């Protein structure tokens, strides 16, 4: 696990550098067990930084969604680096962003956090409802949940986020400084969850998704939380050309979810931020994972693992499968 003192010291040191604008990390949330993003602009801010299994957000998102306000004439934009703390999964977002030339490598200072898994906050809240303020720590194969002066231990497996149960890259794949010791891979991805859905009959499939899609409130939280969704102007909500209407309706919602997932084909790095953000509990990762599985099986491609590889859908192999073509 990461030594918090060391983490804060490094953050202080980093923010003190002339070429660093801010450090993005985690700090305790204001309610319940949540941790929330922290934007460290000066050394003193670093004292509240933490890392715990409650640090579920993918901070790589903040590198790309930062609003670029007009720069006054005669001034230059702030070109100092952004330092960001990333777990293994989050680091893949950075690699994918680099592959897509979202920014130059020297624009970011990556502080890697080898991660043994984070919690599924929904599971935590279900088990410990209405807790005002609490902490979560990982000790061996148990999560230690403390609140109101009590401590409870829960088997890791019971509260661990699904994405962590399939994590192949617990240690960040890219970093300028590592904040802890390498964590060995403790899980693998066999796509059995996707296969369960694939095996449903066509009617069952649509019934399943119709129910999920009809819940969607079109709040776009999934898009906003996603580290790969950072277009200046999302094509899916544009008025012209209008790919789908913005009304909440099973037809429009379905179109939105198909399009959102397709836009992540070969790009989704499985951080689960979308699903985490969804207020309607739509299993967005089930959609993303279908593409993720196919991309790996058909094209032997794993997004966010190599910034030098060409974007999946901007390349092809002459030998790509075509047994489905008439």
């Amino acid at each position, binding site marked *: 696990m990461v030594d918090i003192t060391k983490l804060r010291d490094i953050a202080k040191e980093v923010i003190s550098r002339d070429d660093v604008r801010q450090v993005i990390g985690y700090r305790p949330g204001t309610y319940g067990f949540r941790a929330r993003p922290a934007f460290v602009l000066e050394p003193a801010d670093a004292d509240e930084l933490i890392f715990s299994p409650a640090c579920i957000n993918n901070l790589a998102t903040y590198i790309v969604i930062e609003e670029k306000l007009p720069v006054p004439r005669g001034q230059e934009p702030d070109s100092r680096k952004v330092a960001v703390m990333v777990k293994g999964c989050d680091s893949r977002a950075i690699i994918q962003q680099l592959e897509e030339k979202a920014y130059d490598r020297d624009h970011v200072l990556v502080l890697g956090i080898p991660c043994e898994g984070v919690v599924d906050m929904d599971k935590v809240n279900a088990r410990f409802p209405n807790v005002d303020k609490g902490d979560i720590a990982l000790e061996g194969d148990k999560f230690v949940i403390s609140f109101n002066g009590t401590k409870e231990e829960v088997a890791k497996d019971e509260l661990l986020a699904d994405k962590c149960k399939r994590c192949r890259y617990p240690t960040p794949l890219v970093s300028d400084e590592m904040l802890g010791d390498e964590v060995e891979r403790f899980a693998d991805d066999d796509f059995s969850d996707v296969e369960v859905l694939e095996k449903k009959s066509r009617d069952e499939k649509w019934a399943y998704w119709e129910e999920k899609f009809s819940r969607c409130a079109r709040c776009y939280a999934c898009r906003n939380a996603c580290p790969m969704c950072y277009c200046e102007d999302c094509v899916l909500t544009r008025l012209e050309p209008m790919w789908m209407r913005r009304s909440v309706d099973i037809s429009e919602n379905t179109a939105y979810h198909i399009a959102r997932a397709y836009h992540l084909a*070969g790009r989704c790095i499985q951080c689960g931020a979308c699903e985490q953000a969804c207020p309607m509990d739509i299993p967005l990762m089930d959609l993303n994972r279908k593409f993720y599985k*196919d991309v790996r099986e*058909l094209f032997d491609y794993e997004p966010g693992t190599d910034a030098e590889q060409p974007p999946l859908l901007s390349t092809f192999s*002459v030998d790509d*499968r075509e047994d489905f073509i008439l």
Partner: protein
Amino acid sequence: MAEATKTAEATKTDFEPNIVAFLCNWCSYAGADLAGTSRIQYPPNVRVIRVMCSGRVNPLFIMNALQQGADGVLISGCHPGDCHYMQGNYFARRRFNLMRNFLEYVGIEPERVRMSWVSASEGAKWKGVIEEVVEGIKSVGPMDSFKRRQLNW
């Protein structure tokens, strides 16, 4: 129960599907033209949008067509290696493969979503493709899952 199945069967066979096809200008559109010049008769269910290359076809067009009322979508381009723009059909193939699998995953029958290679000289093949696509879509019935039902505005 038996009655209901019967009606369902009846609607499936009586039903004339509406298919939107995207054809590349150089091979498939020319092949469809050749079918015309040769007076080869085929079902009138396919309506064509001409694009210069199958590589232009954004897979979201498929989704859009199904939403807008099409019962099926066909994308047709040049055979591998024959693309007028060298590679467009390869990109189309890869994108299409993913999209078709995905649509199947959310409950859209793969019979509705087809792709073919038809060259400028394959007027007869074009007819065969249309017949197969029409038959396939008839077997799964009208597209109703996420078809837009609101009034046009």
